[in-house]
């Protein structure tokens, strides 16, 4: 039976060069900062060798960077590992996780259209959620997003 401490120590020795920061938030949550280049090998190790489940990725525009968190759960020890990568806001590009697991397919399509991140090696980067009428290169979750549809009906209080 693997333990939480051993898993973290193992990750730290194995990816010593890659890990830039570890934030041990609580007994069940760990945030690990890594450069984009380390994402695929590290995810592959966590997903395949440690037997984790890919929860989801969540992207956020922090105004200085596009930040993507990849969440993995190791169920046996109840640990949620979040890998944090920061991408250049002007040209956000990162390798696709679809080579590691099929589960990353849809969420990468979603982040691609909502935040404008390019996933190299993704088999099929079509739109997932936005309609066909939505203009190209307009990303609704970016902080500088401006309403483009002049005919849109808005609720009270929403600008």
């Amino acid at each position, binding site marked *: 039976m693997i333990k939480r401490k051993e898993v973290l120590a193992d990750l730290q020795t194995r990816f010593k060069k890659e890990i830039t920061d570890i934030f041990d938030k*609580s007994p069940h949550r760990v945030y690990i900062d890594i450069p984009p280049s380390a994402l695929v090998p590290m995810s592959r190790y966590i997903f395949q060798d440690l037997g984790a489940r890919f929860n989801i990725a*969540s992207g956020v525009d922090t105004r200085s960077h596009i930040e993507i968190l990849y969440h993995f759960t190791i169920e046996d020890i109840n640990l949620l590992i979040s890998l944090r990568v920061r991408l250049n806001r002007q040209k956000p590009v990162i390798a696709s996780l679809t080579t590691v697991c099929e589960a990353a397919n849809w969420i990468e399509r979603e982040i691609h259209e909502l935040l404008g991140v390019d996933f190299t090696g993704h088999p099929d980067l079509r739109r997932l959620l936005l309609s066909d009428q939505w203009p190209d290169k307009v990303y609704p979750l970016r902080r500088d997003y401006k309403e483009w549809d002049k005919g849109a009906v808005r609720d009270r209080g929403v600008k």
Partner: protein
Amino acid sequence: MKKTVIPIGPYHPLQEEPEFFMLTVEGETVVDVDVQVGYNHRGIEKLSELKTFDQSTFVIERICGICSTSHPFAYTRAVEDICDIEAPMRAKYIRTIIAEGERMHSHLLWLGLAGHFLGYNTVYMWVWKLREEILDIMEIISGNRNNYAMFKPGGVRRDINPDDIPLVMKKLDKILPTLKMLYKAVRDDPVLHARTKGVGVLSREAALDFSALGPTSRASGVARDVRKDTVYGAYHEMDWEMIVTKNGDVYDKVAVRILEMLESIKILKYCFLHLPDGEIDAHIKNIPPGEGIGTHEAPRGETFHYVRSDGGNGPVRHKVRAPTFMNLPTYKATIKGAKIADASIILAAIDPCYCCTERMAVSDTKGERLFDGRELIRLSQQETLKWKQKLGAVEPPLEKLTRGTL
């Protein structure tokens, strides 16, 4: 052989998840599927960023009409994760009661529709009648049949009146024998076996690769349940079993859901009998900067919420991941090699919303032959009838059964 493309979907305004399926078929066999979603994308993540933490609870409760509590449950856990605060024990019990009641009515709803797709309209009517009992219980507890509005960061909004508990227990006792009979009926019916065993198999490897969740993964032998894996709510206070089967076909998915309802009754009864006294709210004053993750085992699998706070009064980022987002792509693995008559039940087996199966349309490449959703369900029901005749079961004619139910 000539390949034919079958478009299924996308819209039905009464359902919550319109989806569009593009089946490629060769003769009667499905060889490929492409799923398109997003027809009902409402931008709730963006909307939530414009609300305060308290208001967001109400917004995200409207994400899903059937599992309306699963999102607030995960969201409140995420906010509590930011503050490092735990809800009081009584609030945890009340949350568990609401969540399990919801699981029961959601599974019953699915079971009824699955029965309908397979041509068992008696099951459909019967199970939905049973579901009313659960909705009554929820109304007694929360005042609402759905969208209970019980959750808030740090606890629950309303308490359970102890005077209501005997009535609720009586109702639960009434449901139990019917559920057991239902399980026996499913287990012993040879026609149901013929229609569902070995159909739409999701292998263990595929379930792991797609990171499938909830009953979809548990039917494939992946023991994965947030209620067991993490400590939250009142789930660790009592004994209950995680239901895992290993075949991954439609039959197993039915069996897992029915057995889960029996466990839910066990959990509900324990919670009502052992409801602790005390506060129901931890009174969160302000939410510090930071990020939090909350999960909850919804009827369909794990709901995942990521909330980031900058110390203001609302979230700066709120990521919502519903379980169907992970379960839907498993169609790619389950539907290949299936017959068109089985497509509606395979698509329904992961328990998405039913708009897709009700709005199926089939045509060949020249557009000569066209079935709509009604036709496809009929096709599925005829298949059951064929099996019934083969196995010697007596059944009134199909026409009589389907009239007025669609």
